[in-house]
């Protein structure tokens, strides 16, 4: 009786392992297909001219995405300037005050914010900034994106700081170091790799966001570095080129997509590198 039993169990084992591998493969497939298509269609378009020239009017050949690259970088900087200090401060507050009404309020709002559809955040930024100023602007786009970055930074900062042993804080306080210097000079440096990783991942997350930019940064055919004027961005430029009826512009959309994907990939790789290399040993 044992022989058959064992055989059946082994067969089940192999079947199970096979299924796990199969589904794991299927889940990877879309990523590789996306990378394959974008690289295949996009890389041919990329040249110096594409990277450094502005979009041209309809009917004129050529053109590029320079203003979109500059716009995306500006939006990243703007949203970072707003969300990084707020996010880190909220993360510090949460790790320092584990209980309490304010802490649980912040935690709840972080979760809700993380689940808020990006288009809703765009509308909010429209109501807050665009409507009162009566113009689309880079500033409103930056604010919309900063709201999207915020929960990621708060969460990673909190999780990182929670892992720092309490005895380090005690060591610093026992030397007569004031509380604020203990946080700034002992706790934050010990958690720097985790915090930076969180910032980079949140930047990677917002670089590709289009929806919140539709009624805020709006898009711009021309070069603009004024934060109170509409600004172009890579995702918006992809949308614009892809919706056009011209084959050349379609290929431009692939090219811009390629740049965007490479940017996100590089950000993720740097984040990974930092989290491994700069990790503090306790």
């Amino acid at each position, binding site marked *: 009786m044992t022989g058959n039993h064992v055989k059946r169990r082994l067969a089940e084992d192999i079947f199970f392992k096979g299924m796990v591998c199969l589904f794991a493969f299927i889940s990877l497939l879309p990523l590789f297909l996306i990378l394959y298509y974008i690289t295949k269609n996009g890389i041919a378009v990329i040249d110096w001219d594409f990277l450094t020239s502005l979009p041209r009017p309809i009917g004129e050949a050529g053109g590029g995405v320079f203003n979109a690259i500059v716009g995306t970088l500006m939006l990243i900087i703007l949203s970072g300037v707003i969300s990084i200090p707020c996010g880190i401060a909220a993360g510090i507050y949460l790790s320092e005050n584990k209980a309490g009404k304010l802490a649980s309020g912040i935690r709840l709002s972080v979760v809700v914010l993380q689940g808020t559809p990006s288009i809703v955040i765009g509308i909010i930024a429209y109501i807050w900034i665009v409507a009162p100023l009566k113009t689309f602007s880079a500033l409103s786009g930056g604010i919309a994106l900063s709201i999207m970055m915020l929960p990621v930074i708060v969460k990673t900062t909190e999780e990182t700081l929670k892992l720092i042993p309490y005895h380090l804080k005690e*060591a610093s*306080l026992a*030397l*007569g170091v004031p509380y604020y210097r203990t946080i700034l000079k*002992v706790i934050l440096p010990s958690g*720097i790799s985790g915090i930076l990783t969180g910032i980079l991942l949140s930047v990677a997350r917002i670089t590709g966001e289009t929806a919140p930019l539709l009624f805020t940064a709006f898009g711009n055919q021309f070069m603009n570095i004024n934060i109170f004027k509409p600004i172009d961005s890579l995702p918006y430029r992809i949308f614009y080129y892809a919706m056009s009826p011209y084959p050349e512009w379609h290929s431009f959309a692939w090219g811009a997509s390629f740049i965007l994907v490479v940017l996100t990939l590089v950000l993720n790789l740097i984040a990974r590198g930092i989290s491994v290399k700069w990790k503090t040993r306790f």
Partner: protein
Amino acid sequence: MENTVLKIENFSASFGDNRILKDINLTVPRNVVAALMGPSGCGKTTLIRCVNRMHELIPGATVSGRMTLIDEDIYAMQPIILRRKVGMVFQKPNPFPTMSIYENVIAGYKLNGIRIPKPELDNIVEQSLKKSALWDEVKDALHRKGTFLSGGQQQRLCIARALAMNPEIMLLDEPTSALDPKSTSQIEELFVELKKNVTMLLVTHNIAQAARVSDVTAFIYLGELIEFGPTEKMFTVPKDKRTEEYLTGKFG
């Protein structure tokens, strides 16, 4: 009076409604190792944490009575000023992981933003590491991270860090309980050497350690100071029955 470093009078401490220390009276003279021993949970760690007011980090902590450090009321001082005069070494070695050995020794100055010229800092680092008997082992690796050292070396680094501030008194909270026997005996020898320059208050649950290194011993039981006196006397002719029972291993 000149010979008294720490004076504790009618001192009580509570966390919320829980009274941990009851009417402690204790006088620690200069340049001795004073051991606080007692079974775990008796309040000895709370007592030394009251000396540098680290117990205030726990919400709901209250105290009554008086504690003076060289005739200065500890509870009238700013904690950050007090803690610069009172060094502390913890159970677990806790060098700062982001700093080198050199930076760890001068962490008290660096983190407090006290600016000192480089040659003087070099001197403080060398003297402190020599005092903590670590200099010969690390003098060629001062710029490596402190966390690469062994447990015993890390603890001596923490002692050097406390010594660098020239404290009036050093609080040692079971400093060898996380270390192996060899590192333990090195650190015990170090304490005997160090008392020429600094007064030490040593919390230990190891009776033999109290006997080996201390000059005076306090026995604390259930938050009360049962007996306090010269170590030799207490270990040979204890006055209180409870001390005798503790020393002979009947409880604790």
